[in-house]
């Protein structure tokens, strides 16, 4: 298959076919260039989050725009600015087997999420990270209560996991007040925690996502913020709705992906 890389016009006529070893070496050289140890062989069911596809489209469009800009401008970018930005974006789904519903009573839903970040290479410098959570529109009858329909989402880092009969020790990373009349992804800045886990080698105990519901919340209102799988989800919908951790990093090589600040 690797021979397909060689342009038709450049192939030497009557040259003997490349041996399998030569093709393997050729492929390995290319994979090393891409920073991979071996050729990935994902299953057919592997899912690509829509957010990553959107990022790819945005970055590709931005690169094209920069080519034109580069031709016009000769102003160089400082090394410091480049180092502070990312050339790699990685996405992670949480490990559902470690998912833990800490509490789910009338006023509050608390769920623990653990993301395995061990696939981030040690030499890669993580510049920032965001936790993306989907919230699904809830249709309501208007009421006179001004606080109706509001949910507060708090994202905590677990500093020390829970001991029997004790709450875990956590610290608040980000918080937002949302109204349930809209379907939308919310992005929370979890950079301090991910930097601690990846750069400072602290133990990764995961996040706690706490959703504080309106006082009179019942039924559908509680499922507005999609932190867990529902019995009614189709097989396709949950994978595209589940929480997504996205890390932005720089591998020390090459140029940065430039539209980060624009988003």
């Amino acid at each position, binding site marked *: 298959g690797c021979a*397909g890389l060689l342009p038709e016009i450049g192939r030497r006529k009557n040259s003997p076919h490349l041996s399998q070893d030569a093709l393997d070496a050729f492929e390995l050289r290319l994979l090393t260039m891409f920073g991979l140890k071996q050729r990935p062989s994902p299953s057919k069911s592997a899912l690509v989050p829509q957010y990553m596809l959107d990022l*790819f489209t945005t970055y*590709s469009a931005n*690169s094209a725009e920069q080519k034109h800009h580069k031709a016009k401008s000769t102003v160089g970018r400082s090394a410091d600015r480049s180092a502070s930005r990312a050339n*790699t*974006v990685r996405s992670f789904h949480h490990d559902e087997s470690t998912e833990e519903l800490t509490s789910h009573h009338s006023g509050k839903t608390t769920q623990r999420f653990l993301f395995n970040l061990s696939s981030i290479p040690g030499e890669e410098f993580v510049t920032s990270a965001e936790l993306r959570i989907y919230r699904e529109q809830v249709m309501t009858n208007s009421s006179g209560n001004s606080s109706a329909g509001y949910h507060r989402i708090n994202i905590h880092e677990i500093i020390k996991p829970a001991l029997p009969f004790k709450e875990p020790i956590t610290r608040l990373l980000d918080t937002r007040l949302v109204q349930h009349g809209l379907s939308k992804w919310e992005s929370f800045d979890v950079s301090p925690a991910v930097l601690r886990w990846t750069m400072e080698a602290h133990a990764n105990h995961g996040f706690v996502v706490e959703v504080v519901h309106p006082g009179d919340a019942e039924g559908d209102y509680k499922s507005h913020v999609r932190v867990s799988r529902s019995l009614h989800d189709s097989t396709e919908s949950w994978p595209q709705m589940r929480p997504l951790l996205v890390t932005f990093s720089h591998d020390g090589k*090459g140029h940065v992906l430039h539209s980060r600040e624009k988003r």
Partner: protein
Amino acid sequence: QARANKPKKKHKANCKRHSLYVDFSDVGWNDWIVAPPGYHAFYCQGECPFPLADHLNSTNHAIVQTLVNSVNSNIPKACCVPTDLSPISLLYLDEYERVILKNYQDMVVEGCGCR
């Protein structure tokens, strides 16, 4: 007429950028590279003739080397090489089936020149 019947001296094209499209499905990499489906890599090929014209995007050193080559053919001519390269972004699945978007530098030849 006699002149016209003489075999034509094969004209070698000057250094310039040529099209080269790398299709990931041709190499069986479309199962793990999600996007793009391939990319225009381009390559540089052609002569760097004496005297070097401005559009051949040469350096002072290339001009000197070409001048010396014109009197001493043991010294090679300047080479036709990429002078400007741009990056591409790849969206792919790694060995853990995690989705990665990465920017790879110097993947597309934007310009060629005699160096």
